[in-house]
Structures are given as C-alpha cells and as structure tokens.
C-alpha cells in the first residue's frame, strides 16, 4: 500500500500549481481552473487520510467538496459572463472599479 506521505506530496504539488495559476493568470477561465486545482488538492488530502485511518468519512466529505466546487464554478462562470458583457474581455485585471 502506498504510504500517505506520497499522497500529501502530490496534494502539495497540485495546490502549489493552482496557487501559481491564481497568482499569474489574468484570464478569468484559467483563474477558475487554478482554483479548482487547489480544491482538488484538498480532496486528495481527504481521501489519503481516509485510506490511512480506514474510515470513509474523508471520501464522503470529498464528494461534498466536489459538489461545492460545482456550485462555485456555476457562479464563477456567471460572473465571467457579466465581466465579458461589461468590459468586453475576461481579463480579471480590467475589473478594477471596486479596487481600493
């Protein structure tokens, strides 16, 4: 059986790739994909610890996280749609009217 630390390393790598995407991408769709990567890194952790303890709570909770990610994407794409209508582009740096 694969030791848990390998899953945690994979999860950390996926999370950091997502973080890099959030910090560098200006296209809102890529931004959303990067956030999804970070959420899936959390899912890997949940499932790894579920395997470690022989308890299904982690896997069940990962299902809930997937559902919440779907809800987040639905709202996120709606926001991107409004962004495109108002600014003619989906560059997240264009929407600066609420910036302090």
């Amino acid at each position, binding site marked *: *059986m*694969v*030791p*848990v*630390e390998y899953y*945690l*390393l994979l999860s*950390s*790598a996926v*999370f*950091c*790739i997502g*973080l*890099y995407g959030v*910090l*560098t991408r200006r296209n809102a769709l890529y931004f959303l994909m990067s956030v999804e990567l970070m959420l899936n890194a959390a899912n890997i952790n949940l499932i790894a610890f579920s*395997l*470690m*303890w*022989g*308890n*299904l*709570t982690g*896997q*069940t*909770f990962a*299902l*809930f996280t997937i*559902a*919440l990610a*779907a*809800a*987040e994407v*639905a*709202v996120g*794409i*709606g*926001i991107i*749609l*409004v962004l495109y*209508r108002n600014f003619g582009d989906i560059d997240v740096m264009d929407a600066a009217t609420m910036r302090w």
Partner: protein
Amino acid sequence: MSDSEESAVAINPGAAAVALFGVLAGIILSSAAGFPTPAGFPADAAIVTNIGYALFDIGEGTVPVEGFLATFLIIGIALDVALDSAVYLAKREDDGTIISALTGGGNEVVDGEVAGTADTEAEAGLDHGGDD
C-alpha cells in the same frame, strides 16, 4: 498604493509557489515517520454502498463512517442557490425588461417570444435569430 510601493512588495509568483511547495514537502517528509501504516479497507467491503449509507445516515455499513444527512441537505440547498445565481447572472436586461434568459442557442426574446422561430421572425421582421 503608488507604483513604486507596488513594485517594492511584488514577488515572483513562481518562486513563491516553489517556496511554498518546499516548505510543505519539508514538513511532510520530516513528519512522515509519525504517520501510521495505512489501514485501508477490507477487501470485501463495498465502498460505494457504504458511502451511500453515510450520505443518508442509514448506519448499516460495514466500514466506519459518520452520518452526513444534514450536510447532504445543506449542500443540496447550496447547489440550488448556485443554480439560481447562475441564471440571475446570465440573464440580460434592458430598461428593466429581460431580453435574454434561458433561450435556446442564444436567441433573444422578442415581445415575449423566443426569436428564431418562424412566428417571431415573421412578426418582428427578422432575417435570423441569435446574437450574431
């Protein structure tokens, strides 16, 4: 915040991500000895069945798990709210009138009818429907 201050606090995102991974990997590997050997699940255990029991808090599963019926219902409400939000954000209004919401193929609503059908095209004198 001025441009000079922004550039002063700006860091390389790639370096930040790699540094974070380094810190996380260091912590994980240094504490790896403390992790027990994965217990896993019994070979004859029906994992999906047990997850189903957990979702509805039935309590007849063979693998240890908590009940999640309340969470299941709350997530259902959250998904419903997200669906409504997406529809609200996607609709287009002009002078307080919805001009496009949930129409097929991006067709616009003309006088309460979906543009692009033969009837509405004849009434509105349109050559074609759609956003193009």
